[in-house]
């Protein structure tokens, strides 16, 4: 039931917001923050709820293929 997701958020996260997503992979590019991780439905909705509570602008949420086997991740 675990699946890999990417959540794209407008802008750069400040400290409070970054701390809220600690434990997940957070990268910033072209003023879009991407949060990556393995989620089940409850943890995915939890992450979306955090985004809502912090008032962040969610651009998109994508389910992505697991990285190819054998690649260091």
């Amino acid at each position: 039931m675990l699946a890999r997701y990417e959540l794209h958020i407008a802008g750069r996260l400040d400290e409070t917001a970054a701390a809220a997503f600690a434990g997940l992979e957070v990268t910033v590019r072209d003023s879009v923050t991407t949060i990556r991780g393995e989620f089940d439905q409850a943890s995915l909705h939890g992450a979306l709820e955090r985004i809502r509570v912090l008032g962040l602008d969610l651009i998109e949420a994508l389910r992505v293929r697991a990285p190819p086997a054998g690649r260091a991740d």
Partner: protein
Amino acid sequence: MTPEQADRRLGVPPLPPRHVARSRLLAALDGADGLPLVVLAAGPGSGKTVLLADWVLARPAPVGWINLTTADAAPRRFWPLLASALRAGTGPGEIPPSAAATAAIGGVQSLLDSLPDSAIPPVLVIDDAHLLTHPAVLEGLDLIIRGGPPRLRLVLAARSDPLLPLHRYRLAGLMCELRAPQLAMTRGEMRALLAAHGVTLPAENLDALLARTEGWVAGLRLSAMRMEGTEHPARFVSELAVDQGSIGEYLIAEVLDRQPEPIRRMLAETSFLDEVTGPLADAVTGRDGCGDMLAGLARTNSFVVPLDAAQTRFRYHQLFAEILRHDGRRYDRCTVPDLMRRAAAHFERTGDFRNALYWAAESGDAQYAAAVLARGGLAHAFVHGVDLSGLHLESWQAPALPGRADAAQAREAAVVSSAVVAVMAGAESAASDLRALDQTADQLADQQLSPELLVTAGLVRLLLGMKAGDAQAVDEAAGRLLAPSGHPPGYRVPGLPAAVMLAQAATQFWHGRNEDVGALLQAALREAERDGPPVLELNVLAMIALTDSLLSRPHHAGEAVTRAHALLRQHNDLSPPLALELAAAVRSLIAADLVAAARATERALTSGYAGFDPGLVGARAVGQATMLLASGDLNQARAVMNHASSRSDLPLLVLLRETLLADIETIVGRPNAALGLLRGCQDGDLAVLVALPRARAYLALRDLPRAQHCVRTVLTATSALVSRYNLLEAMLCDAQIAQLKGDPGRALEMIAGAMELAQDDIVLPFFATQGVFASLLARHPAVAAQWPLPPEGVPVHEIMPGGRPDTADLPDPLTEREHAALRFLAAGLSTAEIADEMCLSVNTVKTHLAAIYRKLTASRRKEAVLRAWELELL
């Protein structure tokens, strides 16, 4: 049974019929015994609640249980609820009731300290913990989880991950997690569940069912219900396997299809109710026998949940209710607002005006809401302090009377329209509304009015009088309502006399007519104790506390405060009224405990609905400004006093405002401006109260004779308005004059007198004049040693500017509409959605949002929401 055990928010829900125990999961829960946190995170229908209920019911040690709702997730309500859940769970006497009060202000540590020290820490289950989003609550829970060896173990069931730093708990090994994969039913569990429903399936069908439902508990339960008693259960499984749609919807539709039409219709038509009873369902559907149908469903169907042992009250499983509501669209006979109005009518008939008003508001039918108000709703709201702003009365229109309308109908229509006017009137329009009412007085005072209309007509005058600040109108209306003829034979609204006396006392107090206030409030208290609801008793006690605090009678006020807190502990659904918070602020301020005063002011500013007394809102602004002045922030104090929303025309509040503004002028070196401000207040009963600020202004001008004259006016006044606090201020002022005249002997004499009068509970005037007497005190160490000081442990520099709560920093408070928009903003709605919700144009919403950003000094949504959290505006 204690009231807390009867509280629906605290009970362990009953197990469903045909329950199958899940031993591997129960063992997993038992195995987590040493850990401070257990999290069950999975979507709806995963069997979280049932599993925990099964676990809790089998545990030898008691467990606290909270069924969380959105309303209870705010810190103000959550912490007291948590404390009562623990009390209910650990048995009475083990946790001191004071823990609830401490926890209410965020003292999680003291709550933990108050827990009995036992080898096995108590367990607290919070169901629907995903509703916890307030940072203060989450911080408190984090403290419980990470605060060393567990004094309290938390079990959280949530549809989505609770917003706690779960990854840290995971790393630190503090948490046991049960998630969707573990909660999914195994093949064996599924077989046991089907067997309990008398269904047996061949192996390949079992596999197909498990694959299609992915072990989802609600899906399997629905499937079992669908197959129960059918001849070919396997056929259902094959059909289910090929269906591609949402499995929940498919299954519930299947289960509903098997219900006889009357039951299906009843379920659909009552699906909007949070709680259903037989008579209520009868009223809403317009058909008899619903009670039996509900009880029958509850026996066989785990989606109709009984709420009491006698099986008279029920609720629908959330998922089930969603689909029922959808199902309801098949029946176009009635729309949901119609059904809501029928529910309101049912509650009106049974005399439950709280629910009648609630459903009238929900139905959005202003005509109906107005009729409920006139027929007894207004009296209920007035006694219970119900906020009527949700009734949509702004869209109310006087209905055209039928051509053949008789006099009785015309009279009823007049009362209905006057009730709407009274509720909607603002301070500006109330006086003219009252005059307009006088012209139709004959109709409304008519003895032929039905008893409830007669009472409503009386209350309309009282309310308009209060809003217009017309003490005479209030006295007259109160006199009529309290007279034996005011409540016709056989008709009594419990608590109404007490509520009327409270209103009358408050109005007199705000008009500076103190003579009867104390006696009226005591009489109101006796009446409220006798037959009023607890909320009314609380409101009376709060007003006693406030008036006694303002008249510097700290012991009397303290007594009322103690009793009010006892009531709050006893009744979990009550929250501290505004008057009680203001009383706390005044008491702390007088004792120069600025930290406590700041906290109380903050609570007063964030407390919700202010009730029917318009004076309290004005008093809150005066309290806030006094607080700011005492901490040296003159500009903010002035801004608060000049702000339109805090301006009250009630004489005492006008006077306090002018006094404050004048003192500020004197302090900033403009005593002539101060005297100019006070010139308008020198006539009337309250004039004696402006003598002190005038004395201070003359003192600043070094006009000692005039200052002396003013001080003498206060010292020799016989008015009940001059409190011990005023006298003491006058004496210190006199001492200052004596000092300036070069008469230290007299100065010391006055100071000694003031100290005696202070009786150790009035400190602020000494604190404020400490600098003035510095050299005198240095020469007389014996006097200096007795000089009253603020409570110890708080260095003065910390309570001076900067030590105030942030809330007081909001120079321009949000309007109600802006506040509403802010809530939607925090809920993540787009501008267009907010416009839709608030029935406004997009441009108007944009204006509101711009104002919010400006007032919160935020540049964008996220910042505004974060800042609002910080300020506890949300």
